């Protein structure tokens, strides 16, 4: 749930990048961070354990547009993708305004994608969200690898209804990264303007 800071006249929104381990969530954020105006962004915080796993989140606020005189500030988070860290994922999902699901296009990770997508839906449900109702975008990452599965096959499993906006991406090189971000930001802004929450 977004919150409004009246003193700074800002609406703060939370976007969570979700997906299986090493699918490119952090790479997305790093690319966005590197390409964002320094004045528009806060400090990126990356927390990892001694085993080099991304355990908590990367934090990146940046400003995009205004609503009724209030600037919107987006906070971008990633979740730890490994199947083990469900407790952390649940915590990071709290108060989410929009979700980007980053799928790893490689065949070897197909089951991990499906598990993560199901896990996302279940964790949101626990917190009273319906994945079909909140701003949600799917990104098929790592399209540059020869092991990438045909898009149609991924779509049939991860976006079977075809109702979710989706992008192909090569996050390392930035392809599709800002398309994904702009779309999820736009969907969140539409929700805010509707005042439905």
């Amino acid at each position, binding site marked *: 749930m977004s919150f409004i800071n009246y003193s700074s006249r800002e609406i703060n929104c939370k976007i969570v990048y979700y997906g299986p381990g090493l699918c490119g969530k952090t790479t997305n954020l790093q690319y966005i961070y590197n390409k964002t105006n320094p004045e528009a962004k806060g400090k990126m915080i990356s927390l990892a354990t001694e085993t080099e796993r991304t355990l908590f989140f990367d934090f990146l606020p940046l400003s995009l547009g205004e609503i009724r005189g209030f600037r919107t500030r987006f906070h971008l988070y990633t979740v730890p993708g490994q*199947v083990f860290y469900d407790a952390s994922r649940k915590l990071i999902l709290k108060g989410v305004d929009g979700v980007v699901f980053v799928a790893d296009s490689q065949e070897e990770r197909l089951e991990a994608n499906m598990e993560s997508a199901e896990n996302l839906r279940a964790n949101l449900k626990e917190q009273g969200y319906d994945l079909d109702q909140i701003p949600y975008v799917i990104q098929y990452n790592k399209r540059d690898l020869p*092991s990438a599965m045909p898009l149609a*096959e991924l779509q049939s499993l991860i976006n079977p209804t075809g109702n979710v906006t989706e992008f192909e991406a090569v996050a390392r090189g930035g392809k599709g990264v800002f398309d994904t971000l702009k779309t999820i930001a736009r969907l969140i802004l539409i929700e805010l303007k509707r005042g439905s929450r």
Partner: protein
Amino acid sequence: MIVACPSCKAKFRIDEGRIKPPGVRLRCARCQNLFAVRKRVVESAAPVGPPRESVDPAQGNAAEGRGRILVAHGEPVVAAAMRGALEKANYEVLISGDGVDALMKIQRERPGVAVIDVALPKMYGFEICEFLKRNESLRYVKVILVATEHNQGRYRRTPENYYGADDVVEESEIPGELAGKVHRLLHGGEDAGATVEPPGSAPGIDHEAAAGLVEPAAAEIAAQPEERPFAEPEDPLPEPERVTAEDDPRKEMRERARRLARIIVSDIALYNPEIVEQGLRSGGLPALIRDDLEEGYKLFRSRIDEAVAAESDFIREALDAFVDRKRRDLGIPDDAEAGTDPADDEHAVADDIPSAEFGTGHDDF
């Protein structure tokens, strides 16, 4: 038709009538690997651009464009690097910046080799590769796919899985290796296709047989003439898997348990590549990843119905299948005691897991 598991190479005979468009996913009965199979395509999709006269695949286009190389890459800098490397070796180089243009140029200019970035704009390189290999009149074009350099060795596909490509080059290898790979594909040589088995290694069979099967896994099967009596598969034909086809709830839960176990093993391997490789080579992998396995068992028991979980050691089974597959990939001989150390009883490990719930220390997040 005959299909082969891309992971363990086990071959199966399957009735083509059971393969509905756009294809089915099969699980290998031997190694449990999931792979896609599509129906063979006799006539490929309509080519882009005007149709050309058919070229005798056996002759290739030797007279026309043997020394002509098409280079297709979305990044001009990389394309220029490839052009430089090939021109230095006296090849005539054509440049293309996107997939559609590349395909048109291939049909029009008839290059001997096409060096194609896998992530080309407009049409991916692997799609072009599949198209060329399915098209009788273009099959002679040797294809080298350009892959982004990536240091995650665990993700490299086995050679026959590169969409039927003749070879693969990573961007960092372009200056040193591209010209040599092109030369070997055009003129033959022991090392042709350092990472991909050269289809030309079996003259007269390769391209004929490579026709039609879309899935890269078919590359190896394709080397078998269709009429040849095929050895009986060592394993029974796996049933095509349908995600929603589970009628028996228990069966569904069992499959979910297997899937979760595979993901747990996959995640452990993903985050511990060096340790896993060490374990595969030296033996005793379970002992080396003991802590992660403990976490895995704990997670597994928290997610899977107790009765189903008690049916079998799903994680151990997934680990064994993983070890078998990786040992084959790494070329570790079967007699090596790698992976499944009999002295290490994971059941005992699992039973000894502390009861504290993971994640309770994160509440101040």
